[in-house]
């Protein structure tokens, strides 16, 4: 068991445990902070998967921008801690949780036997080799940023442009939704 595998497992387990911690926090700020930790861990995992740019973007975009907005809104509203209402969990939900835990454990026992990736074999995907019909790397594997950029701006150019429209719409929408309407002011006055 080499170092990267070990650290990957540790990071993964920590992330899962932290996510469990996150969804049980009472304070929104605590939850957001735990979430940032999870994201940082995931960034580390991306790094280990040799997706360096993804790792950096994970931190810059997720932890550095999206979560800042979250924290900002949480602080702006300055909500009191939520009273947790777990008493409302029904029998059906408990069964659901039990089944899911069972399934998760069952799945866990199969990990390491290539179980999750067997389907890929039939598609002609061997470990670390290019998929038939997939988009190949343009540069050596160490040039991760260039590879991502080449794929994004060549094979996925349209998707990229469309996403930009989505973001534009989201920005405008957010401003419109969150802005206090002047009519309200007029009514209040």
């Amino acid at each position, binding site marked *: 068991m080499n170092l990267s595998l070990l650290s990957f497992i540790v990071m993964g387990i920590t992330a899962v445990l932290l996510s469990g911690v996150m969804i049980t926090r009472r304070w929104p*700020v605590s939850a957001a902070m735990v979430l940032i930790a999870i994201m940082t861990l995931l960034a580390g995992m991306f790094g280990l998967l040799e997706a360096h740019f993804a790792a*950096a973007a994970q931190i*810059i975009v997720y932890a*550095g921008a999206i979560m*800042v907005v979250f924290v900002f809104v949480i*602080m702006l509203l300055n909500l009191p801690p939520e009273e947790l209402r777990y008493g409302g969990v029904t029998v059906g939900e408990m069964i659901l949780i039990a089944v899911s835990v069972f399934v998760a454990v069952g799945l866990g026992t199969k990990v390491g036997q290539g179980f999750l990736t067997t389907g890929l074999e039939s598609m002609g995907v061997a470990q670390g080799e290019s998929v038939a019909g997939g988009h190949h790397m343009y540069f050596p594997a160490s*040039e991760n940023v260039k590879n991502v950029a080449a794929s994004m701006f060549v094979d996925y150019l349209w998707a990229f442009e469309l996403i930009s429209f989505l973001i534009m719409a989201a920005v405008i929408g957010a401003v419109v939704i969150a802005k206090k309407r002047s009519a309200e002011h007029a009514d209040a006055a």
Partner: protein
Amino acid sequence: MEGSLGAVAQFLDTNIGLVASIGKIALALVIALQVAPIMVWVERRQAAFIQRRIGPNRVGLFGFRLFGLGQPLADTIKLLFKEDFIPQQANKFFYVLAPILPAVIGLVAIQGIPLGKEIIVAGHTIDLQPVNLNAGFLYLFAMSALGVYGVALAGWSSNNKYALLGGLRASAQMISYEIAMGLALLPMVFIYGTLDLQGMIAAQSDSLLFGFLPNWGIFLSPISFVLFVVTMFAETNRLPFDLAEGEAELVAGFLVEYGSMRWSLFFLGEYAMMFTLSALTTCVFLGGYEIPWLPHAQLVTLLTPIFTAEPATWVAAAIGLGVLIVKVAAFMFLFVQARFTLPRFRYDQLMRVGWVYMLPVALLNLVVMALIVGFLRLT
């Protein structure tokens, strides 16, 4: 003894990478930890000069005053022995965590700065960038992006209205300026064609611009430089962008409930981040550790006759580090100078500058530079 020394030597030989990494990280840490005390002294002295007074010049060591260089030491001792308290209504965990975050992040971020080109030790070439990722540039960015949490958390966990306002201001300010900052630096990425800071420095030293200017980023894309410097001030919460702690409006902003060592940890983090960003500016725009008109390789060739091959690289590295520190120091001085000469923005002005002026200018600059670079590449 001979055997144990040999074992040590062999250990060093086989694990040279690990040892070198520890060494480099330690070196960077040492530099970063010195920044805060020295800068505090520099700021106070410079403030005094600007304000036509003397400033702290009394504290000395062993009877030598040395322009009051002992002052930082005395301050540190004072801060260490002050009462450490936690406000009653504060969220304890985050109150404690908040000052640690910027300090840690600042100290971690500095690891991405190349302190020199490389040295050769016993036949092993050691890159002098403590953490060498092939996207080192993004690493620095990621770290600087995380810097806001310390301030935000401090503001929130203090359970104080002023602090909360300071935290809110800081987070809004930093996400606003981060965009302009990234956009300001993007042209440099495609001018140099790499995200690696070492590569950028190499690209800046390998030729001359118009035959006489150093091929520095500041000459290649001056608008980027100006934008970046401005956003750098905003990102580090320095005047004229220190709205988060503006003492006139918010008492001390997010710092209002902090005292003693926790308070100084914020300063440690802030100065470390200042140093890191200044060093980043130096690397991207001012040729990093390279001496103008004298590339590192040439320097090594010059030095080789004097010191033999391997030590020559050591000397060159030392000179490079000196050059880097001189350049960074000049920047830090700019920070200080700005702090005592420029008035503070109003908050709406700050936001307007960020979104209405900086961002469009940065975008325009990006487009224009992209066109120019694309045109030059094609022809």
